[in-house]
């Protein structure tokens, strides 16, 4: 969804004033991208939707503390999502270590199952295998490389914005992107 310039900042001010309609509008604007990003980072569409919910609950509670000098509303929302994803991955690792379940990544296929349902049947059939291979290659990337690549590809963030969202230097963010793209290319045999 195309976001008119300055709209999200206006929405955040209204959310800070307690206007729920502004939150609903922000969810319509940023929700799909956030849910897709988190879903692909965690390998589960359901987890992605839950993370998106958590992001908007936090935005509702902390909208008054948003500082435009530190970045855009989109960057803030994706920073929250990234931290929530890291928390979930950490908990999943502990669960796996304790033998309590598969944790994040268990629903890796779930995100793929629902993809591309709007396309025609022929295109779906032709692209399904290719997309499955890309998803598999994405899931095989190191988590931070996957995050950087998804931030660039799904949310269209620049290297500097990715660095700010992930809390790394700009050079590190660019390195993550280069490695992620070349890793994905190698896995896809291109």
């Amino acid at each position, binding site marked *: 969804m195309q976001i008119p310039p300055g709209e999200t900042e206006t929405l955040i001010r209204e959310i800070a004033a307690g206007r*729920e309609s502004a*939150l*609903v509008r922000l*969810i*319509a604007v940023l*929700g*799909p991208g956030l*849910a*897709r*990003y988190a*879903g*692909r980072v965690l390998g589960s*569409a359901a987890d992605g*939707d839950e993370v*998106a*919910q958590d992001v*908007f*609950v936090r935005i*509702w*509670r902390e909208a008054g503390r948003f500082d435009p000098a530190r970045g855009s509303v989109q960057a803030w929302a994706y920073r929250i999502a990234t931290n929530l994803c890291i928390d979930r991955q950490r908990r999943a690792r502990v669960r796996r270590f304790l033998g309590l379940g598969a944790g994040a990544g268990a629903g890796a296929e779930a*995100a*793929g199952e*629902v*993809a*591309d*349902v*709007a396309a025609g049947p022929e295109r779906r059939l032709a*692209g399904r295998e*290719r*997309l499955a291979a*890309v*998803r598999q290659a*994405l899931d095989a990337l190191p988590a931070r490389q996957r995050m950087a*690549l*998804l931030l*660039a*590809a*799904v949310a269209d963030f620049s290297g500097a914005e990715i660095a700010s969202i992930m809390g790394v230097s700009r050079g590190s963010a660019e390195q993550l992107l280069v490695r992620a*793209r070349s890793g*994905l*290319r190698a896995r*896809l045999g291109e």
Partner: protein
Amino acid sequence: MDDEIDRLVRAAADRPVDTGAIGRAVLDRIAAPPPDLFAWLRSGPARLVPVAYLALLVAVPLAMRAGGAEDLIAAVALGDPMLTGPGGL
């Protein structure tokens, strides 16, 4: 080259997202009162704690004035075998 990879990643991440459902869940969550971490203080047994404390505040000085409590407290503090040993109180 990078654009092609990014396009593939975008396509791989693409899926329908029900923003209406996300919105309803978020509105439900923000409408719910925040978790009450001190609810246990208002529970039945916890209410007896201040009552018992007040009772002790009154009972101990009264018992000390009557003369019985001082010996009892001293005996417990010193480990009097009459009180704490086998067959003791």
